[in-house]
C-alpha cells in the first residue's frame, strides 16, 4: 500500500470560523477555499433555486470592492470559481503565492460585507444569467430534465431534495431582491463557514492572515439543521418524452446518507455495476448482448440521505423492458451472491489510486483544500481523509452484498423511461406521464 495522508492544522476564530491550513510547497501557488454550509436543501417549495442564484451574486462585488469579483483576482493571475449543491456552497481561488492577501481580502469582504453591493440591477441580470444556465444545461440538453423527474418522485414535495439545485424556472423568475438579505444573514457568516488555505504557505502565516482578514466579521447564529426523511414502498414507474433519438432508462433508489454505514459500499457497487468494460452491467448490456449503448451508475451522497442512480441508453431497436430485465437479474444476483474476490481486489486497488490521485492538486473542485472543507463541514473532522479511505478498505464482499440486498430493491425504486417524442409505447409498461420543465 502506498502511504497517504492529508495533514493539516485547524484553528477556530473567535467568531466561529474554522480555518484549516495544509502546506504543499511543490508549486508556488496557494488555494483559498471557502465552504458555506448551505445549499438547495435550505430552500422551501416555491423558492427553489435561491441558494444557487445567491452564489452568482457573490461574484458581483461587495461593499469595499463594489464591482466585479473577477478582475482584481485575474489581474493577480488567479483562477476562481464557485458551485452550489443540495448541501453546501463552495468558493475558491488558486493564486500565485504572492497574491494570498488579495484572495483573503476578497473572500472576507464578501463574507462580511456583501449586501451593500447587491443592487436591483445586478440581481436581475444574474436572474437572467441563471435562467440561461438552466436552458443551456437542462432544457436544451438531451435527457436534461430526467434527473429532475427522478428526484421529484423519490422525495415528497415538501422534502428539500424534491428539487434540483438549479431550481424551478418559475421560482427563479419570482425571486425578489429582499430575499437576498434574509438569506445572507442566516447562512453567510463565519460560524456557518469553513476556510481552507492550502499550498505554498507557512502555517503560522496562513493562520495569522486568516485572523487578520476574517477575525473582524461578526459571528452569527448557527442555522438549525434541516430535518427530513423520505422512503419508497413500491416501484414508481414514470415516462418523460424528450427531444432525443434513443430511449433511456433511469432507476433511482434511496440509499445511505453521506458517510453513513453502507455509503461506501454503494459507491463500490456503482463501480462494480457500471464503471468500465469489466463491470457487470457494461459487460452484459453493452458488450455481450449489445442492447444498450452505455450504462452508468453513481451514489449521490448527501447529508439527509443519498440516492443511487443507474442509467442505460437503449441501442437502436432495443427495448427498455429487455434492459430492465437484465438489470434486475444482475441486481438480484448481486444481492444473493455478492461480489467475487476478484471484484473486491479490483475495488481496493481503485480506491487506493482514487484517494492518491486526489492528493495531486491543492485547489479547485476536489483539490486538497476542497476535501479538507468537505470533511470539516460534513464530519466536523478535517482529518477524516484516512478514515474515509478506511471505509473503502474495510468493505467486504459480504458488506457489499448486504448493501445491494438492502438498498437496490427491484420493487422499491423510481424507474423512469425517457422516450423520443410521440413514442410513449417505448416506455416500460405501467409508466405514468411526468411533467417537468
Amino acid at each position, binding site marked *: 500500500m502506498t502511504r497517504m495522508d492529508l495533514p493539516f492544522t485547524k484553528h477556530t476564530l473567535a467568531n466561529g470560523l474554522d480555518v484549516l491550513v495544509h502546506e504543499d510547497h511543490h508549486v508556488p501557488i496557494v488555494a483559498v477555499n471557502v465552504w458555506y454550509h448551505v445549499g438547495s436543501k435550505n430552500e422551501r417549495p416555491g423558492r427553489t433555486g435561491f441558494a444557487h442564484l445567491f452564489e452568482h451574486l457573490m461574484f458581483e462585488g461587495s461593499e469595499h470592492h463594489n464591482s466585479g469579483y473577477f478582475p482584481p483576482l485575474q489581474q493577480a493571475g488567479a483562477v476562481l470559481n464557485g458551485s452550489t449543491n443540495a448541501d453546501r456552497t463552495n468558493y475558491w481561488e488558486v493564486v500565485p503565492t504572492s497574491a494570498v492577501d488579495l484572495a483573503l481580502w476578497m473572500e472576507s469582504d464578501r463574507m462580511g460585507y456583501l449586501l451593500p453591493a447587491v443592487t436591483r440591477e445586478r440581481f436581475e441580470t444574474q436572474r437572467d444569467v441563471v435562467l440561461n444556465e438552466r436552458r443551456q444545461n437542462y432544457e436544451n440538453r438531451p435527457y436534461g430534465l430526467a434527473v429532475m423527474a427522478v428526484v421529484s418522485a423519490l422525495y415528497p414535495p415538501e422534502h428539500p431534495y424534491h428539487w434540483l439545485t438549479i431550481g424551478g424556472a418559475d421560482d427563479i423568475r419570482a425571486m425578489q431582491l429582499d430575499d437576498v438579505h434574509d438569506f445572507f444573514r442566516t447562512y453567510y457568516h463565519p460560524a456557518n463557514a469553513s476556510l481552507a488555505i492550502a499550498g505554498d504557505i507557512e502555517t503560522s502565516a496562513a493562520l495569522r492572515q486568516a485572523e487578520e482578514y476574517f477575525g*473582524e466579521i461578526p459571528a452569527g447564529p448557527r442555522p438549525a439543521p434541516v430535518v427530513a426523511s423520505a422512503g419508497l414502498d413500491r416501484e414508481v414507474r414514470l415516462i418523460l418524452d424528450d427531444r432525443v433519438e434513443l430511449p433511456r432508462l433511469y432507476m433511482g433508489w434511496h440509499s445511505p446518507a453521506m458517510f453513513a454505514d453502507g455509503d461506501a459500499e454503494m459507491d463500490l457497487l456503482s463501480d462494480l455495476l457500471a464503471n468500465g468494460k469489466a463491470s457487470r452491467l457494461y459487460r452484459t448490456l453493452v458488450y455481450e448482448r449489445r442492447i444498450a449503448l452505455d450504462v452508468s451508475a453513481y451514489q449521490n451522497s448527501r447529508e439527509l440521505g443519498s440516492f443511487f442512480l443507474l442509467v442505460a441508453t437503449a441501442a437502436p431497436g432495443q427495448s427498455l423492458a429487455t434492459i430492465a430485465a437484465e438489470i434486475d437479474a444482475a441486481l438480484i444476483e448481486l444481492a444473493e451472491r455478492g461480489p467475487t474476490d476478484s471484484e473486491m481486489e479490483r475495488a481496493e486497488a481503485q480506491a487506493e489510486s482514487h484517494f492518491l490521485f486526489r492528493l495531486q492538486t491543492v485547489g479547485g473542485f476536489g483539490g486538497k483544500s476542497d476535501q479538507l472543507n468537505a470533511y470539516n463541514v460534513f464530519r466536523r473532522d478535517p482529518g477524516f481523509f484516512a478514515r474515509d479511505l478506511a471505509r473503502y478498505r474495510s468493505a467486504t464482499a459480504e458488506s457489499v452484498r448486504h448493501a445491494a440486498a438492502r438498498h437496490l430493491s427491484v420493487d422499491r425504486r423510481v424507474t423512469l423511461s425517457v422516450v423520443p417524442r410521440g413514442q410513449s409505447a417505448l416506455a416500460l409498461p405501467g409508466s405514468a406521464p411526468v411533467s417537468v420543465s
Partner: protein
Amino acid sequence: MAVDRTRLPGVGPDPPFRFPSVVRHRLANGLDLRTVEHHSVPVITFVLQVHDGSGADPANRHGLAAFTADMLDEGTGALSAIDVSEALARIGAEFDTDVGPDATVFTLTALMRFADRGAALLADMLVRPSLRGADFARLQQLRLDRLRQLRDLPSAVAERSFLRLLYGAHPYGHLPIGSDAALRAMTLDDIGRFHRAAYRPSRATLVVTGDATHEALRSIAERAFESWVEPGGDGMPTPAPADIEAPRVPPARLAVVPREGAPQSELRIGHLTTGRNTPDYPALLVLNAVLGGQFVSRVNLKLREEKGYTYGARTGFDWRRGTSPFALQASVHTAATADAIAESLRELQEVRGSRPPSAAELSLARATLTRGYPRNFETAQQVARSVAQLVLYGLPDTYFEEFVPKVTAVEADDVTRVAQRHLDPSRLVTLVVGDYRAIADSLAPLGLGEPVILPVDE
C-alpha cells in the same frame, strides 16, 4: 490590527518559475522518449503521442484515426477487451485516449508501485492490439449509434457543421468521430492499415513523468517499449494535413441548423486563421484574452453580465499545426439570438482598431496569462501533456521558460496589428443551431444575407 478596506492589498512580485528539466532519450528502435522527474505524489504518467490524428483520415474514411485508437484497448495477446479493462482496474490506472486533428494521445496514470505493469499494458495495447473482427463490429455499431446521439446535442451539431462550413473538404473539416457513411464503409483492414502506417516508433513520442529519477523512468519505458519494431510497408502518405491549403473564402456568411422549439440558440461566429506555430502566437493569446478568452473579457461581459443573454460567451483558437479556426461561441436565449449576433460582430470588428485594448485590458490579459502560469504544471499528467505539446507543435525545449517574458512583452499596438492581420470581419461565418421559425425574421436586418439552411447531419 484592523484590515484596511479602503484599498485592495498589493500583490508581491511573481514567484520564480522553472519548468522541470526534460531529459531526451532515443531508444534503440528510434522511439523519442522524454522523461521528467515529478516528486509530489507517488504516481507515474505515461503520455504516448502518435503524430497522426483525424486530419490523417482518408477522404472516404472520416473517423478512421479515432476508430483505430478506440480498437487498441479492445484486446491484446490473450487478453480480451474485458481482460484489458480488468487489468487496468487491478492497478487502479486511469487510461484516456484523445484524438485530435494532428495527433492521437494516450495517457496512462498509475501508482508508482505499478509503474512497470502500467507501462507493459500500454505497450501491449498500442503496439500489439488484437484487432479482432467481433470487437470491430461491436465498436462500429457503437460509434454509429453515438454519432446518431450527437444529433440531439446542440453544441455537437454546431461543432460539426461549423468545421464543415469553414474547411469544406480539407482534412481538418470533420470531427474525429467521422461520418455515418464513412463509418459504415470501414473495414477491419482499414484499421489494420492505419495502425501499421501511423503507429510506429519513428512517428511517436513517449513522455514519462513520475516519482523516480530520469534513469529509472527511462528503464521503465525501455523495458516496456524496446520490443516495438518499426513495421515494414508504407508510413502515412504525405502531405500532412497542415501542409494542405485550406479554403480562404467561406461558402456563406450565415447558416442555420433548424432545431424546432429550442429554448436557446447555439452560436458559432468565426473563420479560419493562422496555425499554432505563428510568431504572432503570444500577441494572439493576449488579443483573445481581451476579447473573450476569460471571464472578464469584452464578449462575456457584454453578452452575459451586461445583457443577460447567456450563461457564458467566449472566444478561442482551436489550434492545429496548420490553418486553425478562430471562433466566438455562446448558447443564447432564443429571443436574444439576433441581438447577440449583432453585439458579437461589433466586438470582433472593434477590437481591430476603433477600440484597441485599453491599458487596463492589456494589463489584465497579460497578467491572466502569465502570473498564474506555474499552476499549469502541478500534476504529473499536466507536465507530461505539456511536454507532448512541445513535440506536437515543434516548439523549442525552452518554450515554457520563454512564455512569460514573451507574453509580458506584448503591447497594445501588437494586439491591434495581429487583430488586423488575423481577424477579418468580411470573412466571418455565423452559424446558428436553433429555432429557425422563431428567429428567421430577426436575422434579416443583420445584413448577412439569406441564410444557408443545413441539415442536422452532413
